[in-house]
């Protein structure tokens, strides 16, 4: 047998048969869809600032809430995963991806009941984001705090 098919070389050989990842096309799609979601976010922010006379920071809460609502609905009608197959990181990175990971887990485990199914599995995928966010914020926060005490006083 050809040595490239030997066990130790097999993984490398198999990869040479992979279709080439269309990196540029994938990045372009992620850029357009991700940028578009942020553009909607900006439109919503401006809308809330104008209509409800909010500051930019105040408008952040209704903006994020609206985006999450849209994402949850698109997940519910079975569209978000289709867009995601096209957009890749373009739909995973915005906060809508976070909402999709929560809604999709909740939907999927509905058949196992409301408490142990939906309740128990909602954070199956999104949990890691909160865990690593909180842990890193704690660590960076303590460093900043100690630094400020020593330098800023």
């Amino acid at each position, binding site marked *: 047998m050809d040595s490239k098919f030997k066990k130790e070389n097999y993984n490398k050989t198999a990869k040479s048969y992979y279709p080439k990842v269309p990196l540029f096309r994938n990045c372009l799609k992620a850029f357009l869809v991700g940028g578009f979601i942020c553009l909607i976010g900006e439109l919503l922010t401006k809308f809330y600032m104008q209509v409800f006379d909010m500051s930019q920071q105040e408008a952040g809460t209704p903006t994020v809430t609206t985006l999450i609502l849209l994402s949850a609905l698109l997940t519910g009608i079975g569209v978000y995963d289709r867009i995601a197959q096209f957009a890749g990181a373009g739909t*995973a990175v915005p906060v809508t991806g976070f909402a999709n990971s929560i809604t999709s887990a909740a939907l999927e485990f509905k058949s196992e009941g409301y408490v142990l199914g939906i309740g128990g599995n909602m954070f199956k995928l999104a949990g890691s984001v909160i865990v690593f966010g909180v842990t890193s914020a704690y660590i960076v926060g303590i460093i900043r705090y100690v630094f400020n005490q020593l330098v800023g006083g």
Partner: protein
Amino acid sequence: MAKMGRQSWTLNNAVYIEETGTSVGPKEGKGPLGSSFDKSYENLYCGEDNWEMAERKLLQDSIQVTLEKAGLKPQHIDMFIAGDLLNQNVSANYTARDMDMSYLGMFGACSTSMETLAIASQLVDAGAADRILTAVSSHNATAERQFRFPTEYGNQKPETATSTATGAGCALVSREKSKIRIEGATIGKVVDFGATNAFDLGSAMVPAAHDTIKRHLSDFGRTPADYDLIVTGDLSSVGSPILKDMLRSDGINIDAVHKDCGNLLYTSDQGMLAGGSGTACSAIVTYGHLLDEMKKGTYKRILVTATGALMSPTVIRQKESIPAIAHSVVLVREEG
């Protein structure tokens, strides 16, 4: 029974696939082989409340259709041998609950179709049973949920990924003469070449298919030219060329006779990436399409090599590699 080499056997008596039945989901029904399936559903739920029940519905359908086509009642059947992809083989177990007959549950991942057929033919040959129903099922959404992510989760799959087929295939094995005779089988070994990419199961299963096909040809003293078709289960568009090259480097050329069930099941514009996979894939393609072609006379003798990846999500996350297995069954067209 006659043992052939170390891993194969031929049957002493004439054992046949008396009848088959297939039931499939929407994408399979709309695919290029759609007309060869007995029953197909427009909706992935198949009229049931959840994915797991939908898969059982497909499995029950395939059995019911087989019995109807054969004009038999459950009391005429001695044994039921079945398997699927879900934990604890629940689709098969819960289907067997309502069947009132001896039952053997088997797991060989996507190789279960030929695993059950090989064992059933052996038991009928030995006279341990007169009629055995073998059936397997898989469902895209139950598999996604168990092995990957929730079905609505926005995860971009790479082009090497396969799509689990939704469907079930059933074969009735007996000594009643039919057009399709089971000649023998080669039982595979578990082979692991260290593949770790769960989004490319095709190439992970190639070494197992290679091992079993090579062993089969040597045990039976045959060459690929003895077959009109050597069909693999679900090696995908990535794994199929690797298998051909790997066998060619051993001096075995299957280019002229090889096909892959996963590549036959869908057209490339159905968005199924590298092709179909899943326990049902080889079963519905073989019991539906390929047996039809044999009855028409397109193929006289075929070798069906069903391939299975034997991992679980837990051990993959623990950085284990993906072991695989392949089982081959020889089917022959009986004249007259």
